[in-house]
């Protein structure tokens, strides 16, 4: 396992002591009769409370990996161990890429979905939904339907839907990829703000290096097709982070550059693969 440590990372003391929450050993995924290998031998340990980011070129199997963690895809080989600290809470909740809010439910009902499916008493549902919608500034839009919201607001509601469910692990699949830069920046701030209040374990998928460095504690770079681990990088920035000021830090640019260097070959390889395939 290539662990690249640069810029003398200051590992978070809490994380070093934190027990491992997600442990993957030799996890592979191939699809059906074609034998297409999407994910090829992933070994990682993600401690409790860590913001873990996976970055890689399109089609590198990162979404497949996340869907396996979410239980939406089976694992072909290897083991996936998830340690639970509180079995009464759900194991994971996912924030999906693109529009995943139910168009037939109001903002409130969408946010309450996970809790209601678990049979939580309606009074407790109301408390939790109100708390989260207020935290993200959407309480006054609670009676709106998704088609009456902007794209950024819709993504905030799907983040609330996952947080309100109070899972041990949050899985996020490129949740901001469809948003413009300015909206993205605001949502990074909001995500960090509410995440820092709960310190849940997060596995976050992105193809944006900036996003990875801004949000993550640790970043895994994946190779293209089949998806393997290329490098794991610790992000040295302390919490709480200021999304804007972070970019002022020379270490930020160095880190982004360093990751890009590793990623560039993979992106090129992915492109060659897809062109060769045609």
């Amino acid at each position, binding site marked *: 396992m290539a662990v690249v440590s640069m810029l003398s990372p200051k590992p978070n003391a809490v994380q070093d002591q934190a027990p491992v929450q997600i442990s993957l050993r030799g996890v592979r995924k191939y699809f059906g009769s074609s034998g297409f290998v999407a994910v090829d031998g992933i070994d990682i340990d993600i401690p409790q409370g860590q913001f873990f980011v996976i970055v890689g070129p399109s089609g590198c199997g990162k979404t497949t990996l996340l869907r396996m963690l979410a239980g939406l895809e089976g694992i072909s080989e290897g083991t996936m161990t998830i340690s639970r600290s509180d079995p009464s809470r759900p194991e994971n*909740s996912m924030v999906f890429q693109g529009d*995943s809010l*139910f168009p*037939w439910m109001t903002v409130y009902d969408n946010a309450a979905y996970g809790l209601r*499916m678990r049979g939580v008493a309606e009074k407790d549902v109301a408390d939790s939904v109100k708390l989260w919608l207020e935290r993200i500034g959407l309480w006054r839009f609670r009676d709106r*339907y998704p088609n009456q919201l902007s794209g950024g607001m819709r993504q905030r509601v799907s983040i609330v839907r996952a947080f309100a*469910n109070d899972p041990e692990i949050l899985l996020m699949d490129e949740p901001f990829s469809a948003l413009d830069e300015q909206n993205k920046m605001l949502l990074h701030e909001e995500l960090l703000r509410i995440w820092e209040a709960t310190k849940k374990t997060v596995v976050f998928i992105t193809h944006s290096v900036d996003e990875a460095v801004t949000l993550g504690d640790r970043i895994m770079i994946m190779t293209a097709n089949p998806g393997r681990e290329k490098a794991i990088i610790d992000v040295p920035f302390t919490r709480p982070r200021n999304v804007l000021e972070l970019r002022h830090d020379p270490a930020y640019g160095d880190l982004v550059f360093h990751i890009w260097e590793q990623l560039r070959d993979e992106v090129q390889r992915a492109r060659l693969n897809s062109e060769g395939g045609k």
Partner: protein
Amino acid sequence: MAKQRTFYGAERFIGFLTPLALLGLWEAAARTGLIDARFFPAPSSIVHTFGALVASGELWTNLTASLRRLLLGMLVGGVPALFLGLAMGISRPLRAAIDPLIAATYPIPKSAILPLVLLIFGLGETSKVVMVALGAFYPILINTVMGVANIDKIYLDVGHNFRASRWQVFRTIALPGALPSIMAGVKLAMGMGLILIAISEMVAASDGIGYMIWNAWQVLTVDTMYVGLLVIALLGFLFSTIIDEVERLLIPWKART
């Protein structure tokens, strides 16, 4: 906005004007003998007959008879179609098992089955209800299956990720997701029901709007025939207005932003 509204108002006005103008032309043509009043009685005389049929209670008797069969048939055909359609939409094996049956029986004109239905269910009320039910069954079934099957897969992933049970997926995702398509099916079913109730009452009934029209042909009271047609047209308009309203209540998320 205001300009648009006045234009919309003008459109509606024109929409009323055309049929009125046609009626005026018809009336004039019938009175001057330009068209044969035996086949095309003047609108005024049709209105007169309409009044007489209302006064005698004849129209009311026939109307309620048809309405009862129509609504009963819609329920008998529509409710099973809805549940079967939802089940088929969710379960691929069930769909695979039943789809060929539907594909094979759907194209048979329902009116062609009328003699068989009369043979099986007799000349009583049941046969008419069954005819409407047959007509309502297919459009609602097909639209429901399509509505469920076309639900974006991401919603099912969300349901799965939030650990919704099968019943919860059904209630919170399949049903509301398919609702717009289901309502379109109900609308088609209502149109089909009107056609079939008219046909089956013509052949085998002693009351109902269809019977009234057929009887008018046999005794050559052409005015009554026209009243029957008018009533069916009004029913069609009324039902589609009601269904539109129900749709707005059931599917508020489709409302304009």
